[in-house]
């Protein structure tokens, strides 16, 4: 199974490596997670485990969810995410099993999935990288506008712009995956995972960290060398 864990982003800092280089690091409060459900090919048609993370007071949960967690023999949790396994992979797991950062002890690179910071309603320049209009030469009040969104022929018969034309709109607050980030270290006692570079989302945001699924040649070599 690809190793996976749920966590919360704590924030960023720096660390100096042996050569004295300055390494930017994101600190993630990862786990401990508990297996709240095991899915097998017989019962669900595929193999997977559901990880549950972070305790919460029972009165903040709902009866169906409390029951779901109780079935696995764990206290009510706030977050649940499913980790897909290879066929037959679920046999190694049982409900209520703890999964903590120690499983990442020998992981060299990881993928981080999170929800990016919400940016609100943004114009096409920020949202899509449009160039905008000129600052002068007769341009008035349209310096950041997108320009043409199609003429009569492209819109013929519909009276509307084509589907998928890039315009201003809501930006951010969407799922973002950052791949192949280096794992700098773990702290078993405090359940911390140190990852090189930035990860999506605000501090305290929920993150799904898994072992990197695909690596570039150079990184794959480093990961293999162990």
């Amino acid at each position, binding site marked *: 199974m690809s190793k996976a864990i749920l966590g919360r982003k704590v924030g960023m*800092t720096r660390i100096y490596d042996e050569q*004295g280089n300055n390494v930017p690091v994101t600190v993630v409060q990862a786990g401990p997670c508990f297996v709240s459900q095991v899915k097998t090919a017989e019962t669900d048609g595929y193999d997977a485990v559901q990880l549950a993370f972070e305790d919460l007071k029972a009165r903040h949960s709902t009866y169906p969810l409390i029951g779901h967690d109780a079935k696995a023999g764990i206290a009510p949790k706030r977050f649940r995410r499913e980790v897909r396994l290879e066929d037959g992979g679920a046999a190694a797991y049982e409900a209520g099993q703890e999964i903590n950062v120690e499983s990442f002890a020998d992981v060299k690179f990881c993928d981080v999935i999170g929800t990016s910071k919400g940016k609100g309603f943004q114009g096409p320049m920020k949202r899509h990288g449009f160039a905008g209009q000129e600052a002068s030469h007769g341009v008035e009040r349209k310096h950041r506008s997108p320009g043409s969104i199609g003429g009569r022929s492209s819109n013929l018969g519909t009276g509307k712009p084509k589907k998928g034309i890039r315009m201003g709109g809501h930006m951010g607050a969407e799922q973002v995956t950052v791949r192949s980030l280096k794992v700098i270290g773990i702290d078993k006692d*405090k359940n911390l995972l140190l990852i090189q570079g930035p990860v999506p989302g605000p501090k305290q945001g929920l993150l799904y960290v898994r072992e990197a699924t695909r690596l570039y040649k150079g990184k794959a070599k480093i990961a293999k060398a162990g």
Partner: protein
Amino acid sequence: MSDAIIADVQKSHLRTDLPVIHVGDTVDVHVKIIEGEKSRIQVFQGVVLKKQNGGLEETFTVRRIVANEGVERTFPMHSPRIDKVDIIRRGDARRAKLYYLRDRVGKKRRLRDRRRGLETVAKQEAAQQAAAK
């Protein structure tokens, strides 16, 4: 809460072997310079103009005069690239940022010797040594 966790992560990387550096001090900064395989040590002497940030990210800026031209260099306080820091003189600074030294020429550039708060400096040094142990 998150600040406490980050401070904890930084703790093991903080250096306690350097002396207490104050703004206004004249210091010798011994910097490790790595050129390929070899490394050598270069000394940068000057007045501490300012200290910035905190924790592991703390830096200090040293100003010196080279060939009649002011040169300022900023060092990360906790970087392993800093071999050691020697305090040559404790200067009397009445503010946190000595930007006014940039406009001074000649003898006016010099700061008076520090007389105020020397007990505090001694206390800080004692605390630093205790932390180093």
